[in-house]
Structures are given as structure tokens and as C-alpha cells.
């Protein structure tokens, strides 16, 4: 009997060790990796990551002692422990009933008091206030399965590539054409927002560090989903202007013929650029679905 007990204890220790080893190995795998959400390169992403870290800390303050208590009790009051003082018939009083509600209640109050202001501050529709710089507007059209970016102020357009100047607030105006719901996400810069037909959804972001980041579609949208990605480059002001000028030299124009070509579903599209966009293209695309055309199919 005793031998069996010891054997079991060794087994449990072994399994627990294995469990810890898995966690340690995962942590080790993380070395040198880019954990996008905590490696923020945009003001919004930065604030969002701070909120996450704050929440985790508050939660751990209650969860760690609670779990330690649980496993300590389980171990201490095991049947084979002759030293444990037991009281299996006692009733717990009002104090316990009160504290089981009060403890999580207090944590809730703490977290809610940070969550509600943060939700307003980080509302994606809210323009980012930056010193002196006017915001850059980029109109985004989600298609099957590519992203079209129109720069109305610069009169250029790109496919699966977007470039913005560092430190300038950017207002992405998201819509979709002939596509299911899409979600537009550049993890290093900030959270995602849906792009839907017949609607404009505003997402305000601002890059803080120059570099190339990856963006893409986050919501399942059909066969080309995984390949619907783009590079998001943040560059210094003069590099951005240079880039715009370079595109203006190009002879490709985004007229309605070219646009309709883009509308044909295709996968894993390479980046492309256009100098000159047919006037009012974006509004036409948005309004297309607002006409309540009952002939639609």
C-alpha cells in the first residue's frame, strides 16, 4: 500500500514537471520573436497594449492568491493527511457569502473604471489629435481578395500596399465592394475594424516608428482569405512625399475599366500603384449599395 502511494506521488511529480517544462519551453521559443501586440509602432497600439497589461496585472493580483489557496487547500486537506484539522459538518456564515461577492465586485469596479474611459479615448472613429499636422485620409476598399487604397489628397491609389508618414494621424475610411464582411487590421499600429459594403467605417491610426509592417484581413471572407495581405510602411515625411511623387510619374490610371478588372475575384495579388483616380470613384462604390436596388440579385 505504501509502495503504491510513493509510486503515485512520483508519477504526479513527473506529470507536474512535464507540465512546467511545456510552459518553460513555450517561453523559450519566444526569445527574439516579434510579438506584434506588445511591440507597438503606433500610438493606438501602444495604448491598447498598456490597457491589456494593466488588466492582466489587476487580474493576477486576485487570481494568483485564489489559485494558490485552492491548490493549498486541496493538498492540505487530502484524506491521507493525519495532521489536518477538519470540520466537515460546519456551516459557513454570512461573512463568507459576503466576501465571495465582494472580492470579484471590487476587481470589477477597478477594471470598469479604466475600461469605460479607455473605450471612449480609443474609439476608432475618433480623430487623433497631433500637433499641427493635418490628418491624411486614405480610402480603403476591401475586394475579393485584395485591398485597394485611394489617397484622395494625393490623387494616387495602391493595391495591397499602403504607406504613411510617421507621426501624421491617418484616417482610414473603410468600405467594401462585391465582397463579404472584411476586417482591416495592422497589428503593429492598432486594432482592427470591419469594412462592409454600402458603409464607411472610420479607423484612426498613427504610426510612430518607420518600418515595414504587415496588415491583412482578419475576418473570414472566402477562398482568398489567407492571401489577402498587404505591407504597411511608415516612413519619414520627405520619404513619403518622394514616394507619392514617384507614383505620380507612373502612367497607370485607376479608371472604371481598371477598377472593374480589380473587382474580378483573384488571390494572392501583388502590390500595384496608380497615378490618378477617377473622380468620385470611392463615393460611387459606397453609394452603389445604398440605392435599395430591388433588381439586385
Amino acid at each position: 500500500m505504501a509502495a503504491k502511494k510513493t509510486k503515485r506521488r512520483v508519477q504526479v511529480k513527473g506529470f507536474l514537471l512535464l507540465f512546467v517544462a511545456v510552459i518553460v519551453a513555450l517561453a523559450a521559443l519566444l526569445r527574439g520573436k516579434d510579438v506584434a501586440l506588445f511591440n507597438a509602432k503606433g500610438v493606438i497600439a501602444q495604448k491598447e497594449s498598456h490597457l491589456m497589461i494593466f488588466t492582466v496585472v489587476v487580474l493576477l493580483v486576485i487570481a494568483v492568491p485564489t489559485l494558490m489557496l485552492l491548490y493549498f487547500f486541496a493538498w492540505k486537506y487530502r484524506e491521507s493527511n493525519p495532521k489536518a484539522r477538519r470540520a466537515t459538518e460546519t456551516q459557513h456564515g454570512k461573512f463568507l457569502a459576503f466576501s465571495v461577492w465582494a472580492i470579484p465586485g471590487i476587481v470589477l469596479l477597478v477594471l470598469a473604471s479604466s475600461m469605460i474611459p479607455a473605450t471612449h479615448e480609443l474609439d476608432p472613429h475618433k480623430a487623433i489629435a497631433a500637433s499641427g499636422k493635418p490628418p491624411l485620409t486614405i480610402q480603403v476598399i476591401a475586394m475579393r481578395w485584395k485591398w485597394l487604397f485611394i489617397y484622395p489628397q494625393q490623387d494616387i491609389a495602391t493595391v495591397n500596399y499602403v504607406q504613411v508618414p510617421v507621426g501624421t494621424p491617418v484616417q482610414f475610411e473603410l468600405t467594401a465592394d462585391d465582397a463579404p464582411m472584411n476586417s482591416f487590421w495592422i497589428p503593429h499600429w492598432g486594432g482592427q475594424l470591419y469594412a462592409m459594403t454600402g458603409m464607411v467605417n472610420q479607423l484612426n491610426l498613427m504610426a510612430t516608428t518607420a518600418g515595414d509592417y504587415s496588415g491583412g484581413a482578419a475576418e473570414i471572407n472566402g477562398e482568398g482569405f489567407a492571401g489577402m495581405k498587404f505591407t504597411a510602411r511608415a516612413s519619414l515625411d520627405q520619404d513619403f512625399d518622394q514616394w507619392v511623387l514617384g507614383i505620380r510619374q507612373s502612367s497607370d490610371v485607376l479608371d472604371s475599366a481598371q477598377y472593374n478588372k480589380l473587382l474580378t475575384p483573384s488571390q494572392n495579388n501583388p502590390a500595384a500603384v496608380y497615378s490618378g483616380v477617377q473622380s468620385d470613384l470611392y463615393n460611387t462604390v459606397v453609394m452603389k449599395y445604398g440605392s435599395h436596388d430591388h433588381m439586385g440579385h
Partner: protein
Amino acid sequence: MKELLIGKLNWQALPHEWFTLGGAAALLGLGLFLIILITRLKRWKWLWKEWLTTVDPKKIGIMYFIVAGFMLLRGGLDAIMIWLQQALSSGASHGYLSSDHFQQIFTAHGNIMVFFVAMGFVFGLINFIVPLQIGARDLASPFLNTLGFWLYVGGVLMVNMFFLLGGKYAATGWLAVAPLSSTQFSPGVGVDYMIWALQISGVGTTLGAINFIMTILKMRAPGMKLKHIPLFTWGSLCSMIMAVTVFPLLTATLFLLFLDRYAGMHFFTTTGGGNAMMYTNLIWMWGHPEVYVLILPSFGVFSEVVSVFSRKRISSYTSAVLGMIGVSTLALSVWLHHFFTMGAGADVNAFFGLMTMIIAVPTTVLVLTWIATLYKGRIRFTTPMLWFLGFVGTFAVGGMTGVILAQPPADFQLHNSLFLVAHFHTMVIGGVLWGIFAGLTYWFPKIAGFRLNERIGRYAFWCWLIGFWMAFGPLYILGLMGATRRLDHYTNSSWQPFFIVALLGGLVIMAGVVLQIVQIIASFMQRRQLADTTGDPWDGRTLEWSTPSPAPFYNFATIPKVATRDAFWEAKQLGLPERKYEDIHMPRNTASGIYIAALAFLAGFGFVWHITWLIVAAMLGIVVCVIARTFNEDTEYVLPAQEVEKLEHERAQKALARHQDIHTDTFEEMGLREFVRVAIKWVLDVIRNKRWRTL
């Protein structure tokens, strides 16, 4: 003419790709194997009379377990295929699946695991245990119960039908989000198969839920007030009330989607004034409460397990009950947190974020009452208790990640990422599934008449725990690295090691599943030694342990009188009352449930393929069956008191003989090595002697 006869069916619908061929072969092979086996054993009549047409909730419960168990294997295979693709498909490699096929697999995986595994097991447990816990002999409507079960089976068949005819399942994600699920973006029958699988089983769920609410409210033993009912029954009651509230919503939503697809309407389309955001709202108004429909019974199971294996009554019963009621009420007001990212204003998002965080309060209350129950208890580390201890730690992580996700600004970054996937798997595996495993192990003696092998059970538990964290730990990390869910290919090669670890974790979980199967077989082999002759193997507290194991078809020879909580425990302290037998009214078996469900399946099949005559005929058939059933007045019979006494006497004799047969001091539970040795010997024996011999 052809159109009239077989609708849109055609030769291309027959299986011709490797996975449909494989699936079809597996389905037909299993069917053929069962048919041959039953025919050779001459068991058709027995099967039909004793099982398929039964109205005994215990037998229906066991049938739920069997079907859900098979679906767990089927959905688990999907999971391994998903992980394998993601482990391979990095950079230049595109893995072994096409993106369309990959998307079908994760869609089927989600549908099967939620509707046919989790729901199946939950309904199985409720069927078996709730009547026993409240001292009832059967349900308020035994017929609705068999109908509900067979509709569930109809859904199971429908979700797998695409293997045989059609070749494609939906590739839309498990909720068929609009407008992706419209005919514009998803032509073909995949989405239709999904709609009808969920419609048929969903109606079954609604009927079942109504039935259990009525049973719990109206059929409790005399003296048992609501404040006395065991916590598993409370969990089930809350769960079923929620199911009744939201399942009609699912039925209506899917019906509108069906009209879009079948009749060219424009509820959720991009054109013609449709509004896809409406679908997202409606489906999550059902979808979020659904998660709690699944988890509340598990909370109930853990409450029972902690109390019994600490040999202590649950601490703060009232708080626990209020916690459950709180969870189920609040669950109806949080649906929007599934799409903070759709672009609602900050006020709306903050409201739903707050409601979601409030839900964490009653949930934490439950955890704290369990901890208080352990305090100063006398704790036995049986496998149900291990599942509990593994559950709390895992569930705490899931709860914390849930609170992070509940904050709209954080959710903008985490939504649709693998972090989210890891979060809800933590809740559904660590919470729902492990609760079901704990419950199945705990009540197994009541179900089968013998305990489960604890040794192999422990190995299975550790495989699940370690495998779970190997499989989903990396997904949390990948989500934080910016990996979205549902990727059949990715270019960022630094993600690959994590996907590979996740695949290995999936394989460790698979090993756990195999060990669970081995555990059941090994326990069966030692069923004489593991037999539960007393009916109360754990020193239980609630009424189900006052019945013999396995429980007789009439549950209680005499209906107990109840005046307190933990009724059986109190009775044991005071001495059990003398038995006085009386006539028992029992419901008669009926095949109406099977017929109606079969016709519903045919109608659904007709809708999928646009076969109008089949739809009309099957619908008419259902109406006729229902009317015929209502005119059948001979639905009960009487078991005379002498007969009950005779049955009880015989059973007691048998139990006594068995009891004397068991030599507890020399008995040792079979280990893995022993199991393999015996199994090989048995197989060799069968091959040599060409004769079956029971293990």
C-alpha cells in the same frame, strides 16, 4: 423531368475527392459493420424494442453519449487536420490542403464540436442524472424526449451527409456569417447542409429544454423544494431556461438565411436592401448564451464532485445558485462583444464591455464557493477531482483572457486572432468538456454498474491537461504576435515553431482520448471486481446514489420523501426508511420519435437539393405522425407492486452474491502494460479459435 424527380442532384454530387471518398467509406463502413454485427448476433428486435424506441431517459442518455463520443472523434480528426495544415503551410510550402477544403474543415469542426459533441454530452448527462437527482421516475413528456434525441441524430446525419452527396461542406466558419453565407459568395450545398443540420437538431434542443424545465419544476419528489435541489440540477435548469429563450432565435435566424438562399430574398444580402449586420447581431444573441447553456451543467457537475469528494456540503449554496442564475441572466445581454470591431460607437461598446465583465463576478463566486468547500474537508483525489483541479486553473486563465477581450480597446487588437481561438477553447475544453468528463467518471457506476479504472483515468487526465496547454498555449502567443485565425497559409516563418508545438499538443490530446477508450475497455474487463454493489460507491449526498447501480428502469422502487438539501446524506445519517412498494405507472416505448425525425431529415434533404415532392411528402408525413401520436391514448402501463417487489428482491440477491465475490484486498486495477498483454492474448485467441469470447 429530372429536375422534378431529384432536384439539383447530379452525378458530380457523388464523392470523388480523397476526403469525401474517405468520409463516405468510413460512414458506409461503420454502417455496414454495425448491420452485419447486429444481424449475426440476432439483436435487431432487441435493439429496436429495448433501445431505439425507448422513452427511458437513462437509455436515451446513454445513446446521446455514444453518438456524441463518435462525433468527438470525428471533430477531433478535423482538429488534427487543421493543426497539421498550419504546421506545414509556412512560406513557400502550402501544406496538403486547398484553402477551400481547409475552410470546410474548420467550419465542420466548429459545428460538430458545439452542436453534436458538447450539446450531445450535456443532454446525455441531464437525461441520465436529473430525474434521479430529483426523485422522479421519468420525464414530464417522455415522448418529447425521444423525439428530441432522434432530431439530434437527424442533425448528426445531416452534418455528415456531404461526404455521401454534394462533396462540399460550408466554408463560412461555424456561424455561417452573412453575407459570406449568401448564394452570391457561397454557391453550392455546403451552407444548406449546415442550415438543415442545425435546424433539425435545434428544434430537438428546444423541445428537450422545455421538457426538462417542466420536469424539474413539476416532478420533484414530495417535499423537495427548489431550495433543496442539487446543484447539477440547478445548473441544468438554468441552462435549459436559457436554451428555451435563445434556440427559437437561432431557428428564426437560420430560417431567414434559408429564405435568402432558397427563395432569393434579401434579409442579409449585400444587395437589395439586405443587412448583414443584422445577421451578426441575431446569431450572437443566440450564440453567446449558447456557450453558457453548455457550461452551466458543467458548473453543476463540479459543484457535486467537490462536495462529495471533500465529504462536505457545498459552502454557500445560496451564493452558488445565485451565481448560476446571475450568469444565465447576464448572458443574454453581452452578445455585442463578439463584434465590438464592427464599428458601433464608444457608448454601445462600453455598455456591452461592462456587462461582459460583470458576468465574471458570478462566475468567480462559484469558484470561491468551491474553494470554501475544500477548506477543512476530507479530500479524495479520484479522477473526477483531478478533472476539477485541472479545470479551475485552466478556467481561470480562460476567464482572465475573457476579461481582457471584454475591454473594447483590447478586443480591437485581439478579435479574430488566434488569441481569441485559444480563449474560447480554454472555456469549452477546460470548462465544458472536462466538466462532462468529470461527470461521466463520477456517475459511471450509476450508468454502467461498475466504476471506471482510476489508474488509466489518471493518465488520460494528464495527457489532456498537458496536451491542452501544448496545443493552446502557442495559440495565445500567436494571437499576440498578430496571427489571425483560420489561416491556411502564412508568410511569417517565425510563427511556424508555435504551430508545430500546437500540432504536437493536439497529438498528446489524441493520446488522452485513446487512453479514455482504453480506460473504458479495461474497466469493462474488470467489471466484476469494479462492480458497484451498494449503489453508493463514493459515499454520495444526493438522491441518485440511493438507487442501485445501474439504476433500474423505474429509478426508484419507492419515491423518497425529502425535507432537506443533500437528501440522501441526511437519510443515511437518520437511517433509511422502510420500503413500502406500490404500483408504478411507466410510459410505453414509442417509435413515433424516430419516424418524425426521419421525415424531418428527409424534408431537410429535400430543401438542400430543391426536391419539392420530397419536401411536401415528408412534411405531410410529419403532420400525420404527430396527429396519430396525439390520438394514441395507450401510452402508459402499470407495473404492479408485487412485480416491483420481486424485481427489487432479485436484484438485491444478485448484488449480495456479487458483493461476496469481490475480494477488495487482493484486487488491483489494471495498468496499461497489463491491458496490452490481455488485449493481445484475446486477439490471438480469437484468431486461433475463430470464435468470439467476451473479454
